[in-house]
């Protein structure tokens, strides 16, 4: 396959030519050369064949690969879906138990002991510290003298609610009106208390 020295000028154009990236005027010139030069047109054939072989080669290489579990792995990575709550709980417990067996056993024993003793007490009280009583109850109200208000206690028994309302004192304060300063209300009831209108307050 002989070639003439003029060929070398065209070689860099062979690649863009087969890729369709050669400008029209260069292409016309090259094609004219190719029609006359067997060496260069053989090179073009080779370059074209290369592309086909590369694609074929990759296909064949892929055929040899094992894709078992490939899609599964991808899906596992794109769905970081957490397992159901109890499953997660079980897994973390398993792991914890495996690594801290003695600690778990001690804790379980302690918890059992506490529960055994603590449960009756808890049932007895049924609430946090200070809540041995059944309902919230008002014992006493004493308003500040300078506020010039008097307290009105309203008991809403059905709702188990107590409202301590403060009503503005009308006119100058009576000196003998000590009751308004210190109300001790054992089982106070709103029945006798005035019923102020909210809007008027």
């Amino acid at each position: 396959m002989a070639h003439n020295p003029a060929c070398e000028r065209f070689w860099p154009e062979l690649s863009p030519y087969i890729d369709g990236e050669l400008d029209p005027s260069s292409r016309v010139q090259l094609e004219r050369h190719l029609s006359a030069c067997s060496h260069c047109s053989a090179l073009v054939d080779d370059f074209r064949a290369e592309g086909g072989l590369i694609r074929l080669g990759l296909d064949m290489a892929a055929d040899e690969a094992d894709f078992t579990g490939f899609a599964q792995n991808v899906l596992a990575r794109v769905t970081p879906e957490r397992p159901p709550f109890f499953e997660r709980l079980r897994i973390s417990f398993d792991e914890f138990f495996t690594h801290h067996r003695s600690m778990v056993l001690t804790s379980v024993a302690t918890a059992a002991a506490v529960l055994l003793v603590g449960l009756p007490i808890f049932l007895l009280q049924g609430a946090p510290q200070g809540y041995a009583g059944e309902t919230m109850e008002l014992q006493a109200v004493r308003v500040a003298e300078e506020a010039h208000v008097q307290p009105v206690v309203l008991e809403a028994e059905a709702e188990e609610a107590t409202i301590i309302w403060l009503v503005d004192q009308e006119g100058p304060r009576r000196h003998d009106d000590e009751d308004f300063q210190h109300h001790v209300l054992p089982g106070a009831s709103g029945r006798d208390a005035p019923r102020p209108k909210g809007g008027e307050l």
Partner: protein
Amino acid sequence: MQRMRAWPWVACLMLLAAPAVWAQDAATAEAKVPLRVDVVSVSNDGDVVEPRRLSRMKATFAKQGLDFSSFRRLSSERVEVTAQAPTQLKLPNGKQVSLRLDRMEKGTARVKVAIPGLLDETLVTLGRKGVVYQAAGDHGGGKLVLVLRPSRR
């Protein structure tokens, strides 16, 4: 060896004994009593009940003749009340609420609520149910109400 084996029993005894100690009325001085304190603004400006659960409060108030159209919860806090130092809460109307454990009797706490300049003291014994609404002065065009509720731990 004997002595080695004895320690778990000692520990168990201590565990069993501890609740018995707790069961006694704890000294008031050491007690820490949890309490839920909400601050609610009531007014006749608009018709807003926020959050919705305040509709119960609205109904209770209405039944007692306290007709307000708007109930807005401004804050809700779980506080721990002790005898040593008062727990302070600042209200939006500038007033200060002070809560202090007044007494602890047979597992029942009595809490003293004070709002200087308005309320010298309100004494409330705590219980597992019920609620105490304490008027706490003016706010905006309406009133502020302190809501004392049992704390669910």
